[in-house]
C-alpha cells in the first residue's frame, strides 16, 4: 500500500509545483503547500483519475493534508 502514498505524493508534486521533500503526510495542501481552493478541487480530480475512484464532495472537504488523501484512497481504492 506504500505505492498509494508514493503515487499521491507524485500527483501533489506535479500539480502544486513543490519539492518532493515538502510533501510530508502531515503537510496541509493550503497552509503548507501553497494550494488555493481551486488547486484542491483539481487535486481531488487527479486522485479520482489516478485511482479510478469517486471522491464525494463531503469527503473531499475533509481531505486537507497529504495523509488525509492517502488514508481516504487506501480505504476506497480499487487499484
Amino acid at each position, binding site marked *: 500500500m506504500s505505492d498509494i502514498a508514493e503515487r499521491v505524493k507524485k500527483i501533489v508534486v506535479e500539480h502544486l509545483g513543490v519539492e518532493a521533500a515538502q510533501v510530508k503526510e502531515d503537510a496541509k495542501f493550503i497552509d503548507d503547500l501553497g494550494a488555493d481552493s481551486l488547486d484542491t478541487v483539481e487535486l481531488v*480530480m487527479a486522485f479520482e483519475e489516478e485511482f479510478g475512484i469517486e471522491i464525494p464532495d463531503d469527503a473531499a472537504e475533509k481531505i486537507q493534508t497529504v495523509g488525509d488523501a492517502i488514508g481516504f484512497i487506501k480505504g476506497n481504492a480499487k487499484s
Partner: protein
Amino acid sequence: MKRRVVVTGMGMVTPLGDGVDTNWRRLLAAESGIRAIQAFDTSDLATKIAGEVPVGDREAGHFNADLYMLPKDQRKVDKFILFAMAAAKQAVEDSGWKPQDEEGRNRTGVMIGAGIGGLQTIYETSLVLKERGPRRVSPFFIPSALINLASGQVSIEFGFKGPNHSVVTACATGAHAIGDAARLIEWDDADVMVAGGAEAAICRIGIAGFNACKALSTDFNDTPTMASRPWDKRRDGFVMGEGAGCLILEEYEHAKKRGAKIYAEIIGYGLSGDAYHITAPSEDGDGAQRAMKAALKRAHLNTDQIDYVNAHGTSTMADVIELGAVKRTFGADAYKLSMSSTKSATGHLLGAAGAIEAIYAIKSVIDQVVPPTLNLDEPDEGCDIDLVPKQAKQRQVRYALSNSFGFGGTNACLIVAPV
C-alpha cells in the same frame, strides 16, 4: 489642462519572435514569420499555414514560456494569457516601473484585451464534457478561458491595483485597449497603465471557423512566406498569427519625475462603427475614414503631418477599401506618406494586432524608418501610393498612424509622436 500620456515600456511576442528588438530587426530585414502549422494536424483543413510563435531559446529570439510563468501555473491558463504575461513582463521590466507604496500600486492599472480568448481551452474542455462528463471539467477551465483574466493575471503578478479592464473588439482590440487606457490616464483615473492585446487562436477550431467565413488564405499552403500579401493582386485572405503586445502608458510628468526613458507620446485616438455587416467593412470605407479623422482631430494634426501609416491591411479584399479611405482622408497628402502592412510578415494577430502594430509605429518614429509590405509584387488597381514594397525605407517620420478594424464593424485609429 489635459494630462499627456507617454510610452515608457514595450514588450511583445509574435511569429517573428520574442522581444521588441528581435521583432524590429526581423521586420526591417523583410523576414516572414509565416510557416506550415506545426502544432496540430492540418490534413483536413483548407488552410495549413499560420504565424505560430517560434518556441525555443530566448537567446535565439524564440519564445521560452518558462521565463514568464512557472510550469505549474502555465497549466492553469490558456496560451493567450501566457503570451499576455510575457509581453507585460517585458514591458514592465523595460519601463523600470516598480511602485514602492500602496498609492503607486493603486494608481497603476491593466487593460489587456483579446479578440477571442481561450478558444483552444474551450474546445478541449467541450470534448472532456462530452466524452467524460461534468465531473472531469477542470476548476481552472473558466479562469483560463476568460478574456479579462489576462489583465487579472498581470495585475496579480505585479500587485497593480488600479483600473483592471479588458477590451473585446475582435481585430481592433489592441488599438482600443491602448486608446482607452490612455484616456484613463488623461482623465486621472490612473498614472500608469499596462495596455495591449493578446491572442492564441491558431488551433483546429479557430482555423476551421475562419475558413468557414472564407477569411483565410488557402492558395499558398506550399509557399507560406508568400501567403500574406496585402494590396497584391494575388492576395486571397489573411494568415492567422498569434502572440501579444503590451505598452506601459504613463502620465508625462510622472514619467519625467522618475527619470523614465520615454519612447513616444500617444497623441491621437479615434473610434467609429460601420453599422454595415458582421464580417465585411462598409464598401465606401466610411467607418475607417471617420476613425482616422477623429484621431487626427484629437491629435490636432493636419493631414500633411502624418508620414507613416501602419495599415490594418490584412491581405483580403478589404485592403483596397482601407486604401480608399486613406486617400479620401488625406487627399493629395496620401501621395506623400508611406503606408505599409506589417501583417505581411507577422500574419494577423487578431486581438493582439493593434498592440504589436502600435509598437512598430512607435519604432518607426524613433528610428525614422518604415517597415516593408512583403510580397507586394503587383499592386491591385488604384494602389498607387507608397506601400513600401518588399524593403524597409529610411525616411522622415514625424508622426505615425496605426489603423485597426474588427469584425462587427468596429474601427480604431492611434497616432503616435516622438517626445
